[in-house]
């Protein structure tokens, strides 16, 4: 009788940090009827977006995780939305790249910083009354003040540390083994609101969270403490530039009610609502900049995409 040897396989690792990617196209519009078709590509450190704008109006977008290099991420993001509506790159008049990888978008005609693009995108998504914008990205956080046209008047960026960013939230999701989309709702399921964990460094916060779990805190309470820490950190950034109504949050953390509600509580201000995905603000702003540039140039035929 021979022994049955079981294959040595590691248990399947769940990716609690993985957030939902999505693609959307406005089925009520026909892009073939548009005079000016522009595109914005936002290649961030964690997520990449492609947004299509027809005659200055949002037509479609694709939001996905950034891959291991910026050019492929830009290509994949654009392909996702173009495939959905049967478009090709040759149909697009102008492409603007933005975000961390903006200089590595192979088909972009121009690169514009994400600060200007987020302000422009938020102005479209939240309305012309938006004055203060908080962009909570994957690896940095920006507080932006803008005028009624979406032009930046003041900005502050914290890109030295991952604390208070999307990546920090992903680390906590993995540590606590809670799907990232559930962190927000679960942070409110506590009897007493706990004090914030360390907001100086995400590594310190992770160590502190582990210590709290060992001392008997529930996972929900730890999540609440981390959301509070993140809120306090970004509020200090916002207070430095001065918060003025109306207030808008862009970036992935804008979907985390646990952080958003705590920011609102500290600032005593409500965030403006939007029907669009908060992560597309940068790419949408880039596409709107592209639309303005084409309008100024008076282009009537698609510009050959950059090599």
């Amino acid at each position, binding site marked *: 009788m021979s022994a049955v040897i079981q294959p040595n396989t590691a248990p399947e690792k769940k990716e609690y940090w993985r957030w939902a990617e999505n693609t959307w196209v406005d089925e009520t519009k026909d892009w073939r009827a548009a005079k000016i078709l522009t595109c914005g590509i936002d290649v961030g450190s964690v997520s990449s977006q492609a947004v299509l704008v027809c005659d200055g109006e949002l037509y479609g977008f694709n939001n996905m995780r950034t891959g291991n290099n910026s050019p492929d991420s830009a290509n994949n993001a654009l392909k996702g939305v173009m495939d959905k509506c049967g478009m090709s790159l040759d149909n697009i008049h102008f492409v603007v790249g933005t975000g961390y990888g903006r200089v590595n978008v192979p088909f972009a005609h121009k690169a514009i910083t994400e*600060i200007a693009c987020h302000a422009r995108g938020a102005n479209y998504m939240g309305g012309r009354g938006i004055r203060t914008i908080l962009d909570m990205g994957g690896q940095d956080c920006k507080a932006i003040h803008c005028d009624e046209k979406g032009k930046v*008047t003041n*900005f502050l960026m*914290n890109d*030295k540390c991952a604390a208070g960013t999307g990546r920090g939230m992903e680390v906590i999701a993995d540590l606590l083994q809670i799907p990232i989309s559930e962190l927000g709702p679960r942070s409110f399921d506590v009897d007493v609101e706990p004090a914030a964990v360390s907001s100086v460094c995400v590594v310190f916060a992770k160590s502190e969270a582990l210590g709290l779990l060992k001392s008997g805190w529930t996972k929900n309470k730890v999540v609440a403490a981390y959301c509070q820490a993140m809120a306090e950190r970004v509020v200090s950034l916002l207070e*430095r*530039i001065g918060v003025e109504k109306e207030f808008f949050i862009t970036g992935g953390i804008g979907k985390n009610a646990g952080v958003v509600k705590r920011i609102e509580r500290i600032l005593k201000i409500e965030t403006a609502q939007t029907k669009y995905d908060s992560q597309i603000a940068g790419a949408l702003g880039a596409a709107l900049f592209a639309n303005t540039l084409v309008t100024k140039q008076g282009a009537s035929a698609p510009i050959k995409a950059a090599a």
Partner: protein
Amino acid sequence: MIANYGYKDGSGEYYIAIDTDQCIQCPVDHACTKVCPKGMFEIITDDYDDNVAAIKQAHRRALAYECTVCKPAGGYARLPCTTACTPGAIKHSW
């Protein structure tokens, strides 16, 4: 536009704020780029097509250390960059 370059960490806030609306009116051809002993300033074309002063990327995360030589402990009574900036566009937060 007020552009804040720098960061906040456990030891404090270190920002150099440049008011670009004042910077574009510079009558002395951006003297800040010449007087900084560390050569931290550069002229860039911003998103609104204005030529303005900015802090070079390599220095933005180490301002607390880079600017030490120009602070009082380094022997300066006044910061060379803010003194050279005639429109008064440059400000240090610390």
